[in-house]
């Protein structure tokens, strides 16, 4: 094996050139090393044309440029005119061909120069047509204190990324079913080093960049991205600083979507939704460390991030600490919001307001939050929930109870149409646990919900448990009626809720709610609710009604006047989407009630219509009845078992032809008797609303 240095080679050239008599000189050596390169199977062939102009041909079986550029095989350099003008050797328009393992075949024409005294080799290519664009390369190799120094400068314009992928596929470590195209509009790279590659300056701009995986979860469309990086390597560690910008196009990574150039920008800024990432960091042992990452994403986000990304495992392990200076919910586009909330309980949540604070992530999982909320206004029209003027400080730790409690306050809120007043809440969090620190009172409908104790464990899991102790201070019934769009009537609702249980998304309230309405009592027990945040909340309850003043009830509902007292129950009430779908109701004159029992003509007509009767008005207007506007009754009542939109009816007492809805007394006595056993619930509700006049079987004695 012959090992020969470039200096020695130049000596050979120097000594052979003046000989003149030699027409052809061939030098072969098996191995050559220098300038950070290693060549094997080298043949140099010199053909003398005249005293100082020589044709040269160099062939190298394998030339190793080091780990960055890799090995080139079959390297051929043909120099049609080697000018030897000491101390400079120059070859204009040398034809070079090589096959790189990394880049494939490369063919180019370049000027080469060799300055033996400074031991400097220059290289400058003409424009190489690559992937529909052009690349120019320049390189310098020289020795400095026995150390090789080299630099390569590449300037590329308008390269097709799809073509690059075809030609240099190994550079793009993408699965075959991913699509990729776009233009490398401009790229300037200055790479330099000695024995090793140790400095890089890159300035590049990619336009119309499209990327997509097969299932459409990762995609870029029409992206315009710029990257400037200055990087240097020392002792095996690369340190870099630079800037990444994204000014046009759209990007989707799983559920995270961003449009860098929305058609309806929310600001007059030139690039209102652009991404700017100023960074400095280091790369060592498969780990990328950002000691500065200043992010700005349109009007949405401004943050300073410290991050550590370890790529040694199949899925990168991320540790980061983000100081969020601004997260403006109002600047969150609807499409981005849809992705972030996909699959959550409040998937239609929207709002505005600012969030600041700090997030710490360890091994890809958030471990602490320290957030300040400023004037948040949130609403989910599907779930029927809203909150306004939400402010405060939320502190959360995944692993331990925080030293300081969290505190939130809001100006107003709304749940299912019921307005809630302002309140302040203090609580501790730890992982998936929540503990109310001090009693909370939320004003509701001129009353309030007082929560003495609220503790939740394992939130979001099937094993979630809740400890609750609350009191519903008397709520105004007129306001409740208004909220639900009912006819307005007086009264109040109150109750103690000693227990609240949540299992598999089903919420069960222990205790009873008591309503004082119409001078009587209504108690609600066994209240359960499921899909509370869904489009169709389901509610179950048992209701007991005691001694309602019928005069007050009938005046509130414009039903026609009835006096007396009403009791009964609505058992197994089931509401879906706030609409009754099943119940077993029985309402009747309160047993033992000694108050005066009178029923007006209009009330008779309306009760008749419930019983499915026709023509009550005509019957009442016939004969002597027309002189009486009201009648005495002994008892009245109605039973309705609702199932599948059909109400199975019954009355207070059987009759030969049906059942009594109203059993009269005195003279003139009026009975309302119905033989309808099943009525259409929706029609019944509609007719009750319209209070239509229809005639039952009315008998008078």
């Amino acid at each position: 094996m012959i090992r020969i240095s470039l200096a020695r080679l130049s000596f050979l050239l120097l000594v052979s050139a003046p000989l003149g008599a030699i027409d052809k000189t061939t030098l072969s050596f098996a191995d050559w090393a220098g300038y950070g390169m290693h060549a094997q199977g080298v043949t140099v062939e010199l053909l003398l044309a005249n005293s100082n102009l020589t044709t040269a041909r160099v062939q190298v079986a394998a030339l190793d440029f080091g780990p960055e550029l890799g090995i080139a095989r079959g390297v051929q350099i043909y120099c049609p005119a080697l000018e030897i003008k000491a101390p400079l050797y120059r070859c204009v328009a040398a034809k070079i061909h090589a096959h790189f393992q990394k880049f494939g075949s490369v063919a180019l024409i370049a000027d080469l120069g060799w300055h033996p005294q400074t031991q400097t080799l220059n290289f400058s290519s003409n424009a190489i047509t690559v992937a529909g664009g052009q690349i120019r390369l320049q390189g310098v190799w020289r020795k400095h204190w026995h150390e090789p120094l080299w630099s390569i400068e590449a300037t590329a314009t308008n390269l097709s990324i799809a073509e690059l992928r075809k030609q240099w596929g190994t550079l793009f470590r993408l699965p075959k079913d991913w699509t990729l195209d776009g233009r490398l509009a401009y790229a300037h790279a200055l790479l330099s080093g000695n024995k090793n590659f140790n400095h890089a300056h890159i300035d590049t701009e990619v336009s119309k960049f499209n990327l997509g995986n097969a299932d459409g979860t990762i995609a870029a469309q029409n992206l315009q991205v710029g990257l400037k990086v200055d990087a240097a390597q020392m002792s095996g560690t690369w340190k870099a600083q630079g800037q990444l910008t994204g000014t046009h196009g759209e990007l989707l990574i799983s559920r995270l979507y961003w449009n860098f150039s929305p058609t309806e920008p929310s600001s007059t800024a030139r690039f209102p939704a652009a991404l700017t990432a100023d960074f400095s960091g280091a790369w060592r042992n498969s780990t990328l460390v950002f000691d500065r990452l200043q992010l700005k994403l349109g009007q949405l986000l401004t943050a300073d991030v410290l991050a550590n990304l370890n790529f040694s495992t199949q899925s990168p392990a991320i540790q980061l600490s983000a100081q969020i200076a601004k997260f403006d919910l109002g600047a969150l586009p609807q499409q981005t919001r849809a992705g972030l909330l996909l699959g959550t309980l409040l998937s239609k949540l929207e709002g505005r307001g600012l969030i600041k604070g700090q997030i710490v992530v360890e091994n890809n999982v958030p471990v602490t939050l320290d957030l300040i909320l400023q004037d948040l206004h949130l609403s989910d029209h599907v779930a029927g929930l809203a909150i306004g003027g939400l402010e405060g400080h939320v502190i959360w730790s995944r692993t331990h109870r925080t030293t300081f409690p969290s505190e939130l306050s809001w100006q107003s809120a709304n749940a299912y149409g019921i307005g809630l007043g302002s309140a302040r809440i203090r609580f501790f969090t730890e992982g998936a646990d929540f503990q109310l620190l001090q009693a909370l009172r939320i004003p509701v409908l001129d009353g309030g919900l007082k929560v003495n104790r609220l503790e939740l464990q394992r939130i979001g899991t099937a094993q979630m448990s809740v400890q609750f102790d609350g009191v519903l201070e008397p709520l105004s019934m007129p306001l409740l009626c208004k909220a639900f769009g009912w006819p307005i009537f007086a009264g109040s609702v109150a109750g103690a809720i000693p227990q609240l249980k949540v299992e598999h998304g089903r919420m069960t309230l222990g205790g009873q709610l008591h309503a004082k309405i119409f001078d009587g009592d209504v108690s609600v027990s066994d209240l359960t609710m499921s899909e509370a945040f869904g489009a169709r909340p389901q509610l179950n309850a048992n209701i007991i009604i005691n001694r309602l003043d019928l005069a007050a009830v009938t005046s509130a509902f414009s039903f026609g006047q009835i006096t007396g007292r009403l009791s009964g129950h609505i058992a197994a009430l089931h509401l879906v989407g706030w609409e009754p779908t099943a119940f077993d109701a029985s309402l009747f004159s309160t047993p033992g009630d000694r108050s005066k029992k009178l029923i007006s003509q209009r009330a008779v007509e309306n009760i008749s219509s419930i019983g499915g009767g026709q023509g009550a008005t005509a019957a009442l207007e016939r004969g002597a009845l027309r002189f009486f506007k009201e009648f005495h009754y002994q008892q009245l009542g109605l039973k309705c078992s609702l199932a599948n939109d059909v109400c199975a009816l019954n009355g207070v007492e059987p009759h030969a032809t049906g059942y009594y809805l109203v059993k009269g007394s005195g003279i003139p006595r009026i009975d309302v008797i119905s033989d309808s056993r099943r009525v259409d619930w929706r029609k019944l509700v509609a007719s009750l609303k319209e209070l239509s006049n229809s005639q039952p079987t009315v008998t008078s004695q």
Partner: protein
Amino acid sequence: MQHLALKLALATAILAACVTINVYFPAAAVEKAADQIIGDVIGKPAAAPLAPHAPTGKNLHDPGSNSLPARVIVLTIDRMLNTLMSNADAAAPDLEISTPTVRQITESMKSRHAQLTQYYDSGAIGYTADGMVDIRDANSITLAERNVVRTLLADENKDRAALYAEIARANGHPEWGADIKATFAKRWIANAKGGWYYNDGSGWKQK
């Protein structure tokens, strides 16, 4: 002769005692209900029904004995019962689908369908073999709409699961849920408009 008659009567009594009557899954009624709901949702007249159903119930008899007279009797009873059940099936009452919950879900799906139609038309989404909807070609949906479509599909599939369960529940047979779902799966495909995609379990196909 008296003994023979007695034996025959006894055998008949034993066979009759062994008869197990299953409650048949009312496939025809479910298909009819499915077509009605699907037509309501997608705004399309119901598709032609499938071929007449073979009864899906199995064990109407227990052959017990292999003796000829017994087999004849069993077959006769079997045929009679089959005839009765077929007649009952033909005259099966409509499935209960008028509950408020079914109505609410149907309205919800109908309203959502207006948003999904363009994606059915473009082949971005299609019907699956399990009676649900899935993305067939996400890359034909713009990036901006991709998460919106995913949200719509999540809501749609939640509604569909609730619909199948509610029909089973409303008809007093929660155990029919899987069969109702399977029937609906076929009917969604049968009612799909020309050009829409469906996945019958062997890959996506265009109708």
